[in-house]
């Protein structure tokens, strides 16, 4: 495989039972041998520690406090989490199930769609690729504008809305459907719109990955008897771009769980009608920015982090089995 475990700078040290002093000395020796590596990561590490790591740790610590942004935080132990799992009905009844449903469809759906589109674009002639890539990346480039001019007029609940007027003209429905304000349809609309705009950095990475696959492999495979495009994808494209697949998978998970404003952008209400589109992020926003219960919002963020971490683990596990087959 591409990633052999061979070390470039120093051969692997054997782990034997030695006195702590010698092992510590040996450890520092190894660290010193790698001093150049540490020099390489130093600039990033500084910014990372200062602007991401320390703030994240501080925010995570806030989850054990009562903090309203005016008084200094007051330590309350596990109370936030106790409340979260036992009494926060909106969280238990709406935010959590909605988030799971949303993530289960949008995460894998967006991931597969990004791969398929990237693959299709890679099949096109060279001059056409960039324009198709631009087209599918447009929602990420234009963000908010896309929402207001394409989806809102399309999904408007009266008969002027493009979708309603289309369906009514062809006799599929006889009265307009409230696509974004009815609690039965809001979730569906949110999923469709998010899928539409899910061609972000993961999509770009996958396209670069597909284009980067060594073309000679395809030729070799043809000689070896690969006949269809599907076989090509399964046996060559995906195995050769595993790093990019993993990257997009993580980005898909992160992106899906961090989506939160979509429901309120579509329905124009916050919270969404009867909490139909209430996601964990909306819940965090509700507590953090509306009620100013920062401590509770922080514990929600920690919960979200755990949720993402677990789905990430699940994703890697699924990939792991695929690798063995």
């Amino acid at each position, binding site marked *: 495989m*591409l990633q052999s475990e061979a070390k470039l700078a120093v051969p692997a040290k054997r782990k034997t039972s030695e006195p702590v002093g010698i092992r510590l000395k040996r450890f520092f020796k190894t660290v010193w041998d790698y001093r150049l590596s540490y020099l390489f990561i130093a600039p990033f590490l500084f910014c990372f520690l200062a602007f991401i790591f320390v703030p994240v740790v501080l925010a995570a610590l806030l989850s054990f406090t009562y903090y309203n942004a005016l008084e200094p935080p007051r330590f309350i132990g596990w109370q936030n989490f106790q409340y979260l799992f036992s009494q926060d009905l909106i969280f238990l009844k709406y935010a959590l199930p909605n988030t799971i449903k949303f993530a289960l469809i949008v995460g894998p759906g967006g991931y597969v769609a990004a791969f398929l589109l990237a693959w299709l674009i890679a099949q096109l002639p060279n001059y056409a690729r960039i324009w198709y890539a631009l087209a599918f990346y447009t929602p990420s480039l234009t963000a908010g504008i896309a929402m207001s*001019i394409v989806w809102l007029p399309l999904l408007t609940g009266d008969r002027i809305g493009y979708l309603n007027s289309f369906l009514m003209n062809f006799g599929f429905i006889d009265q307009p459907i409230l696509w974004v304000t009815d609690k039965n349809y809001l979730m569906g609309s949110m999923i469709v719109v998010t899928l539409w705009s899910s061609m972000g950095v993961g999509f770009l990475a996958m396209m*670069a990955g597909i284009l980067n696959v060594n073309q000679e492999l395809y030729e070799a495979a043809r000689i070896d008897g690969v006949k269809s495009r599907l076989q090509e994808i399964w046996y060559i494209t995906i195995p050769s771009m595993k790093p990019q697949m993993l990257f997009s998978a993580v980005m898909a998970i992160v992106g899906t769980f961090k989506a939160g404003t979509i429901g309120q952008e579509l329905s124009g209400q916050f919270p969404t009608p009867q909490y139909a589109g209430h996601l964990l992020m909306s819940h965090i926003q509700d507590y953090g920015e509306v009620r100013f219960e920062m401590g509770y919002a922080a514990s929600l963020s920690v919960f979200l982090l755990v949720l993402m971490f677990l789905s990430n683990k699940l994703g890697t596990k699924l990939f792991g089995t695929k690798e063995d087959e």
Partner: protein
Amino acid sequence: MAATSKMGRLLAPIRFKRRSKLNRVDNFQKFLLVLLTILGLFMLLPLIYIFNHALKPYNELFVYPPNIFVRQPTLQNFVELFLVTSSSVVPVTRYFFNSVVTTVLAVILVTVISAMCAYPISKHKFPGHKILMSTILLTLMFVPEAVHIPRYIVAAHLGIMNTYWGHLLPQLAAPVSVFLMKQFMDQIPNELLEAAKMDGAREFTIFLKIAIPMVMPAVATVAILTFQGAWGNLETSQLYMQDEAMKTFPFFLSTLTNGLANNVARQGAAAAAAVILFLPNFIIFLFFQRKVIATMAHSGIK
């Protein structure tokens, strides 16, 4: 190398035959292409809209449902934007200068710093590289809204308020870029780097002359991402800049319509501003994405 190319030449006629069979455009592929084009055009709508919207006169700006195409194009919005900007307290060129400086520096530094961080993580396996990578991934998953206040405190303690560092440093911490670069660097065969080492190349030379050219697609993608983030960056202006002369162009443009009594005044200027903000993103995307598509032919990853 020589052997494969010889084989390739020998096999060329056969290969051509096989490829033509496999690449034959059948009806299904034609259907797929049509579908892709229709979907692409639908997704392009916002882009077309932005350009058209800026040219609309006031009586077209507020039509609902919105028209994608302009009926009577006019440059009046740009004139309005020019009039509004020429009367601002801090000259608009100052905001523009701030934005250009921070964006250019951010794009260059983020690519360099993330690549420099990703290279040892992927190729040196120094003690602690696993912990570092999982920490980067884990923090990627933390909700950004929740860390504004701690971030502000850190920035205040570092003394970077009202300086260009205040715009730059928070953006340099780009875990997504490091992750992306690392994934691409994983694909570089270790043998190649070892060979270079044997030939006496120093670590920095290997990094610069071998690793970076081989992950050009990742570099280009990171550049696109960072440019998008840095050029539209409002956050650092809002949080860390109290001095009006240190704020960025997008921040200035957002003040044009924010806090006005109604939703009608200056909408023309805002539409023109949207195009001016969007255009660099558009150009940079095309420029770097072309690089991604072009590099594949001679990447040499095997």
